[in-house]
């Protein structure tokens, strides 16, 4: 027996890694001449102490849930999908085409339609890297990175040359028709008036994200396909011996992953901006990596980690507004979280294992 209890693996290690990342971030804040404690208090105040703060936190969290789930489904098949950003961009394009060119009678049906379009577009954008990995062995990390750049160029082209309304300067599409506008939290919880969630962008897509969490959990741990994906991730040769086709699993896992990343487009494009804008993914595709690593590839973990990053994002915006700390602090924190929970995992794990070993021998 040289294993730690499950709770230590699932809770303790991410928590210690997070504390290390937080400590280094505090050093960074201190080094640029601000008080880390005041900064933290300001972040909590701006992101969690008001309903509108929560409205922003959950809005960002919605993006991160989709992208985190996307990365973790691929991780289960031992694929590193770093292309969530590009898949989300193309997903947004799907949402825009769906909302602009199909006359929807009501937002509920429009939401169904845009869900299908977003997932389909995102999945298709993941298909080529998936095929190249499965059939040709081209490394999926490199190909998905390249597809991020290509997606950005494609979106730019479509916006500037096709979707931009005549005479407009800004590279953005026309505003979507009224019937496709999704109700936000204020409409849902305060009947469209009152101060609850006033001015905040969280919308009904958050519940789609929650449903996605549940579905991904069912898929990974309660279906045959999920079992095959996990087998492939655990041991490709073992899975192959059991009659599981690596080709099929790579393609299917990446399609699901790309579809999930594409769904993010609903939140940003249909839910918030109500038109297609440049840089519609806002870097959330990359935060998905941090979220998946922190959440240990489990949908519930992804949900918690997404809310944490939503808090960081909204808190970071508050910091940028009221102090001299730029927004890029969030990118640094995100990098540190990826570093500690992903790459330096053993730095925390090995000493902990030793501690547990010593405890067991005494006990």
């Amino acid at each position, binding site marked *: 027996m040289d294993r730690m209890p499950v709770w230590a693996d699932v809770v303790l290690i991410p928590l210690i890694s997070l504390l290390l990342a937080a400590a280094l971030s505090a050093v960074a804040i201190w080094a640029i001449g601000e008080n880390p404690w005041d900064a933290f208090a300001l972040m909590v105040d701006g992101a969690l102490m008001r309903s509108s703060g929560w409205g922003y936190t959950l809005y960002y969290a919605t993006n991160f849930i989709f992208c985190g789930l996307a990365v973790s489904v691929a991780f289960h098949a031992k694929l590193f999908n770093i292309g969530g950003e590009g898949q989300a961009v193309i997903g947004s394009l799907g949402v825009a085409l769906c909302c602009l060119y199909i006359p929807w009678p009501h937002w509920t049906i429009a939401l169904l339609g845009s869900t299908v379009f977003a997932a389909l577009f995102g999945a298709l954008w993941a298909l080529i890297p998936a095929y190249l990995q499965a059939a040709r062995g081209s490394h999926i990390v490199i190909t998905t990175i390249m597809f991020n750049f290509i997606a950005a160029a494609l979106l730019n082209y479509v916006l500037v040359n096709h979707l931009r309304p005549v005479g407009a300067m800004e590279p953005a599409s026309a505003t979507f028709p009224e019937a496709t506008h999704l109700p936000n939290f204020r409409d849902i919880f305060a009947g469209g008036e009152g101060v609850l969630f006033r001015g905040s962008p969280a919308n009904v897509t958050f519940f789609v994200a929650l449903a996605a969490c549940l579905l991904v959990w069912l898929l990974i741990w309660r279906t045959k396909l999920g079992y095959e994906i996990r087998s492939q991730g655990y041991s490709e040769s073992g899975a192959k011996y059991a009659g599981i086709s690596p080709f099929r699993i790579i393609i299917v896992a990446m399609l699901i992953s790309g579809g999930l990343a594409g769904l993010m487009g609903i939140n940003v494009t249909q839910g918030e901006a109500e038109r297609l804008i440049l840089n519609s993914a806002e870097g959330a595709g990359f935060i998905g990596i941090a979220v998946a690593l922190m959440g240990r590839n489990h949908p519930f973990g992804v949900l918690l980690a997404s809310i944490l990053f939503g808090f960081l994002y909204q808190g970071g915006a508050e910091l940028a507004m009221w102090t001299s700390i730029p927004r890029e602090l969030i990118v640094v924190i995100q*990098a540190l979280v990826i570093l500690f929970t992903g790459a330096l995992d053993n730095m925390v794990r090995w000493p902990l294992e030793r501690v547990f070993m010593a405890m067991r021998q005494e006990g």
Partner: protein
Amino acid sequence: MDLMTILQILDSTVRLGTPLLLMCLAGLFSERAGVVDIGLEGKALAAAFFSAAFAYYSGSVWVGMLVGIVAAICFSLIHGVASITFRGNQLISGVALNFLASGLTVLVAQTWFAQGGRTPTLENARFSGIPLPGAEALRDVPVLGPIYAELISGHSILVYVAFLLVPLSWWVLYRTRFGLRLRAVGENPAAVDTAGISVVRLRFAAILIAGVLCGLAGSYLATGLQAGFTREMTAGRGYIALAALIFAKWRPWYCLSATMLFGLLQAVALRYQNIDLGAFVIPVQFMNALPYILTIVILAGFVGAAIPPRASGDPYVKER
């Protein structure tokens, strides 16, 4: 299209290809030793910022370059500790370093200079072009004269250094004991270990070389190609260099031709906006995306199989 236009495009090919070449060689050393380095981009970005910042403070481009190299080496060491010492996932470590550089450079730039995440424009502390001897005198010689004067002469010193590094890398990797061991550690670390040579030390040596090369690349970007640091100024070059490395099948001379090809694509995209072919127009966005599209085509294996060093990406676990 006359000779002068072609020469100008080739000239900017060399200038745009140089940072790619330096990063590609960095990746070559690292991956040949079995350490995959997605973090080339981040190292070069960090080096670009610190070299520009210190060139500005000190007024000397050389001081800037040294600090840039030190910054890139620091990033290399983090990568080494994560992926060699603690046997973490090399891809994830590289991705983390890229974000760290992307955030940290803007954070520090904003704190030091308060110009929206960039350094002040460098007036004098830059690498300037070095006219080779006789460039002006030979300019009037037909064909060869302009080629010498425009294309070969007048680049900054780092361009010449980068080109000289290609044969040097070849010599180190294929003609020295260190190079033999370095290649062996990327193919079969256990054998190297059995011979009584430290795998960990060799891999650290390789990523330190990669750090120095990325430092040169970053410093060239910020103080040679441009006059100062701007946010995200590496603009995906680290990833293109990685693709070039695959295209080059992990060989020094091929690195040169692969990076110059990508440099040419960038030069063409830079010079021409929308290319009008009469029947249809190639949009500028397509030209900008072309290096990435070409990478995909190359990776798809249409130009022959590219087989990476066998142990690249795997942490080495010593037997007990």
